């Protein structure tokens, strides 16, 4: 099981959109996906037409008394299950803080589902909170939607600084088998090809951010319709370039996650 989190310090950059469509692209290539909606707004939950309801509220969820499994709902898309959010998630930090090792909580809750899923996708709220640290400790990769703007590189730098700062604090650097800091793989979100500024920013990202996922997601009104259609893009616009972009983005992520790095000796 691999875990990726759609994360950004900034809000409204396309995290939920990517979480929903990457989960769908993954499932359509044969991956068993668990999408966990960690945002009290429940946007991902809404996109899959699932009732925003956390049985027993966030308190039971965090405690994990009956395991995360009891919260899991199958979506209409084969291969994607979802842990829904509801408004009680706004107290996530509060309840995490009451547990023993709050930063390891999400990891602990996912552990029993290791054999059941190939991929966990975490849809995170923006910002930096205790829950953020718990997400970092649970994930292999932070997939970071990056909107082309002159500030986008600065936002990425802030994120890596944050991770550097946390490395010292989180259990992990001590070789005890604790989760370590995730990799950061940004991608360009909401690219408008008609704007020359966008081209300049993308060129700059390509040059300075080696881990950048090379496929940009274009701005398109069909993407905004997700909230109306309440289904991933592929369900209502299978041949749209934005759908293809998410598919290609997923293929790149899958290659990085599952293909062994090219060994020196082999052809």
């Amino acid at each position, binding site marked *: 099981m691999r875990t990726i989190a759609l994360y950004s310090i900034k809000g409204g950059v396309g995290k939920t959109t990517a979480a929903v469509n990457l989960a769908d692209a993954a499932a359509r290539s044969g991956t*068993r996906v668990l999408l966990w909606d960690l945002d009290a707004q429940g946007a991902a939950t809404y996109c899959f037409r699932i009732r925003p309801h956390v049985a027993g509220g966030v308190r039971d969820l965090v405690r994990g008394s009956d395991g995360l499994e009891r919260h899991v709902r199958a979506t209409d898309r084969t291969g994607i299950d979802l842990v829904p959010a509801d408004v009680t998630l706004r107290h996530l930090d509060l309840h995490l803080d009451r547990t023993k090792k709050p930063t390891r909580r999400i990891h602990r809750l996912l552990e029993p589902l290791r054999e059941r899923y190939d*991929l966990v996708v975490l849809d995170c709220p923006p910002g930096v909170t205790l829950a953020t640290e718990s997400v970092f400790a649970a994930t292999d990769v932070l997939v970071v939607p990056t909107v082309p703007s002159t500030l986008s590189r600065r936002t990425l730098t802030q994120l890596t600084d944050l991770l550097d700062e946390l490395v010292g604090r989180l259990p992990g650097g001590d070789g005890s088998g604790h989760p370590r800091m995730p990799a950061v793989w940004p991608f360009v979100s909401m690219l408008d090809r008609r704007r020359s500024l966008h081209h300049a920013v993308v060129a700059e990202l390509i040059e300075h951010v080696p881990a950048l996922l090379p496929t940009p997601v274009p701005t398109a009104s069909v993407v905004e319709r997700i909230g109306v259609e309440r289904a991933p893009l592929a369900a209502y616009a299978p041949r749209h370039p934005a759908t293809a972009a998410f598919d290609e983005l997923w293929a790149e992520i899958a290659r990085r996650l599952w293909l062994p790095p090219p060994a020196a*000796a082999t052809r």
Partner: protein
Amino acid sequence: MSATVVTFVGSHHLEPEASMDGLVERNAAAPVTTVLLDTFDGRLHAAGLLAIVEETGAGTTELLVAGDGAVPVRLAVDARPRTAADLPVGPLPERIGRLLDVRVLLPVLEVRSRRRRLAVVDDEGKERVRVDVHVDVAVDVAGDRDDDGDAEHDDAADGAVFFVVHALVGYAADAARVRDALGRHGTRRVDGELPVALAALLDVDLRGISGTPGAELDRRQSALSGFRAVLDDLAATIDANRPGTIDDLDPEFLHDLRVAVRRTRSILGHARHVLPGTVRDRARSEFQELGTITSPARDLDVQVLEWDDLVSTFDAETAAALDPVRDLLVRRRAEAHDVLAAELSGTSCAELLDRWRAWLDEPDVDGGTQADDPLGEVVADRIERTQRRLLRDGRAIDDGSPAAALHELRKDAKKLRYLFECFASILPAAPRKRFVTRLKRLQDVLGEHQDAGVHAAQLASIARELHASGVEAETLVAIGRLVELQERRCTDARARFADTFDEYDSDRTEAALSKVLGKLRR
């Protein structure tokens, strides 16, 4: 807990929507072909996995991979996948590839039908349970899985309606309601997806055909009947693997066929006083010939299969220089398979197998002097003698012995191993496993020694050929390194032999063996 997917079979056309709230049509009736895939030996089934391909009239092909209680996945594919390499990069090829190894996926059961897709949908527009309704159902069973050899099974499905109810995680109550409603309509309930349910209705064994000897024996039965049962089981394995070998579907067909032939020869060798002499002599020579026919193709299979591993230790340049060798091996392999296919599909091979199985089927045959002895005693004697010989030959080997001496010892070990495998059902499990583990360790060293030696010689001869045909010097140098590698493997195995044999020639082996023999003779 109920199975995730349950099929209900109704004998008349039910109107499910009429009896269930919220059940709506998602897809109108359309033709679909549903094909259950597995390896010849049922590896997915054994692992609790299902691979089903759905081909629609619209020309789309989807692969469904599921397992009871497991999260299913569904993906578009260009064609029916045969190997893990036909699947997109990600966890799925990894998950399935580990199981398949060198085997390919083949159709087990093919269902043609018209499918309507229904679902119970809530006020958010979310599906809570899915129901596929199949009518006009016709079934094809793959020839080798079909007991009565009757390819079409229209009668079993004739006029029936199949309701396949898919429960969704988190919505168990909705699925239960649908199942209850369907159950009330006098339907028959079978767990599993449509092809699995049909397999159950048609008595199709999803376990597949394994190469492991499976004769069920009793140590008190007569030696003649026991030996004949073992030989019959082996003959069935040869027969079952013959078409797949001829079509060169995957290397395991030839492997299993060849091992069954060798086991047959070996058991015939042990059957001197059990089977009638004339029958035994003739069969021995015929199966020896059959075995010989299979050798070149199998050798080349192994070389091609091991190639990537072998070459992976080299740098990229050396590896590239070896490409012509690989190409040659691949070509040779194809040629050898063509020759083999011609032999195996020829009349003499078919006649041999028919005659042999006819004799094994005869109710009353005369036997040798030990024919009526209890099977357990005869097998115990054979094991004891073979072990004695193995120890004698092994103890005679020292650092100066020729390679041929180790090859002979390898044959002794194989004869012993085949006895343990073919008569496994009358041997006590625990000491049998202990003994076989020890024997296997010895066999591994002997096998490594011989295979590496043979490969080195074959590569050297390829080098001579390529040299004559004017190949690049780099290639010849690279082959030289490959030959060296194989020779080193051979020498290493030789060096390990003495210790490995001493380890085998010990009280612990003896203890396990005497437990086995004691039980056989009791």
